[in-house]
């Protein structure tokens, strides 16, 4: 394909991506270096019958004017990155210089908002991804063995958790696990504890969110693995049977190696999607016990009084760095492959 044709065909797509992906990335990098203006204070001398009094108050008009003129705020360098809400260099330094052992470090780090969000995001990503793959694989094996007639309906039902809007899916589950909901109430009955609430304890909240994550993403792993099972090399399976391999040995030695390339693909997609976990925290109203990087950004931007652009942007930049680190193995491998077959 000639350069000219290629350019004409790809232009709309590239321009859209440039304007709304590349430029915003630049924009958040710039924004992250600024913080909101302080309020403009005016000091007036108020002299009354009982002498003079200095009074300080906010000059709302001047503040508004300043904000309008310089919406970016004032320059702050890398200050936002290092403050308590983000990397919290000073606090981390303190924690490491004086602490009462490992447990203390962890719990004090967890009190810092950025590390709290980061730890949940990472735990969520690295637990949900493998769990989804295992459950997806099992479901795929199960569906593969049922009679053809009921496969359609079974696949239909299995797809529902994946296709559902994340926010709505988590709301549906949230209402069920609510203390008044069917699952929540039943759990209270089972454990005979009327105070039991999945929302109350951080651990139970994390578990709930992770269970939701597995529920939501399992169908994706299932569908890909199921498609992979349809292309199993029958010759190899049949010769394994003739060689006397048991069912388990066949799965281990033929099926799993065949699905391995697919597994890499599934893992990649799952990690990308899980890393941005955000809606379930809103849906489950879980922010008190679990926040994620995406949620932290949302929270900054959604501030009731002020939108904290600087803070949100700094978290965004840190999140993007996280994404790049996550993708690095894939990128490096693709690059090697590409160099290998470059002609």
């Amino acid at each position, binding site marked *: 394909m000639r350069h000219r044709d*290629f350019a004409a065909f790809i232009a709309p797509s590239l321009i859209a991506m440039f304007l709304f992906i590349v430029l915003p990335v630049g924009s958040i990098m710039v924004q992250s270096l600024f913080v909101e203006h302080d309020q403009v204070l005016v000091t007036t001398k108020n002299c009354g019958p009982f002498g003079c009094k200095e009074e300080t108050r906010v000059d709302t008009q001047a503040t508004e004017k300043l904000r309008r003129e310089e919406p970016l705020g004032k320059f702050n360098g890398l200050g936002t990155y290092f403050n308590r809400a983000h990397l919290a260099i000073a606090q981390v330094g303190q924690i490491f210089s004086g602490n009462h052992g490992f447990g203390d470090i962890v719990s004090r780090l967890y009190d810092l908002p950025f590390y709290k969000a980061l730890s949940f995001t990472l735990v969520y990503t690295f637990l949900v991804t493998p769990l989804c793959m295992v459950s997806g694989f099992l479901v795929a094996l199960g569906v593969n063995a049922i009679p053809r007639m009921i496969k359609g309906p079974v696949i239909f039902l299995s797809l529902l958790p994946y296709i559902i809007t994340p926010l709505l899916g988590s709301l549906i589950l949230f209402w069920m696990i609510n203390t008044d909901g069917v699952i929540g109430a039943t759990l209270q009955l089972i454990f005979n504890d009327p105070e039991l609430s999945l929302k109350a304890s951080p651990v139970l909240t994390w578990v709930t969110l992770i269970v939701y994550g597995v529920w939501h993403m399992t169908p994706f792993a299932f569908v890909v693995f199921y498609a992979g099972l349809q292309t199993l090399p029958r010759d190899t399976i049949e010769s394994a049977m003739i060689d006397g391999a048991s069912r388990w040995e066949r799965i281990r030695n033929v099926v799993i190696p065949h699905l391995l390339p697919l597994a890499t693909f599934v893992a990649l997609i799952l990690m990308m999607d899980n890393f941005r976990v955000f809606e379930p925290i809103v849906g489950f109203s879980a922010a008190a016990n679990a926040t994620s990087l995406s949620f932290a950004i949302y929270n900054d931007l959604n501030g009731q009084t002020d939108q904290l652009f600087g803070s949100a942007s700094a978290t965004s930049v840190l999140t993007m760095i996280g994404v790049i680190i996550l993708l690095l193995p894939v990128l490096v491998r693709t690059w090697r492959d590409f160099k290998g077959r470059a002609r």
Partner: protein
Amino acid sequence: MADAVMRRNTTQAIVATSLLAIWLVLAAFPFFWTLWGSFKVEADFFSRQSWWNAISGPATMLQTGGHFTLDGYRGAWIQREFWRAALNTGIVTVCVTTISLVFGTLGGYALSRSTRRYTFWILIAALVFRAMPHITLVAGYLLPFFKLNIWGVLPTAIVVLVAINQPFTIWMLHSFFMSIPKDLDESAMVDGCTRFQAFRWVVIPVMWPGVITTGLFSFLLSYNDFAVTAMLLNQDNQTMVPKINSFLGTVQTEGTIMYAVAAVVSATVPLFMLVMFFQRQIVSGLTAGAVKG
């Protein structure tokens, strides 16, 4: 597949079948439960005495005089004007899907037909963009959009959603186009077509399955979006998902949570339909990227 390869003994069959049954209940039960419950009153759907109340609905009988009530739906759709959000969602999803497909087919075709080095870089860049959490980009939109005075309106959200979905769209269409032999467009070009004519008259007519599948996913992405629509649309222009989220703040205090339940069910029904009619395409779309490896 009931042949020797798939044959198994009874115990294995029972274990496998019951595991599958458990999964199906987990996957589908919440939806049917909520669907049923949305026609009851709050005292039944959120009953502390017995979950059976949500099914039989004694309080519903008492309060409304019928087994089922449309109060939740009436409250959401009429009183809270959920129809406005539904209309906005319709506009946004239709526009996003159409524009995404136009841009995506052009781009995906170019990427599949060029053997040059830059196609590799574009695809890699698209992969990285695809991995970016959407909310990080939203943080970059707000200030410029305020400044340009385009914040809050539907066209802005549509354009942003198109752009955000492009990486995904061109990847998927690229892999569909790769499965169409180059011979086809080359013979069209020898027969007298320009590149674009070959694309329009010869390649697109055989691409419909891929276009439909990708369209479904574009639809899903825009329909399911929360990050972009919640942050970029003002109160009047909200689509269904952010609208439901803003319901939540008020309904809890007003005791009208059934409005939210009804709204959630209403927003879920189209997705149900979609899976029902396009199950095959969705399955093929999910695997499209994987088959290529």
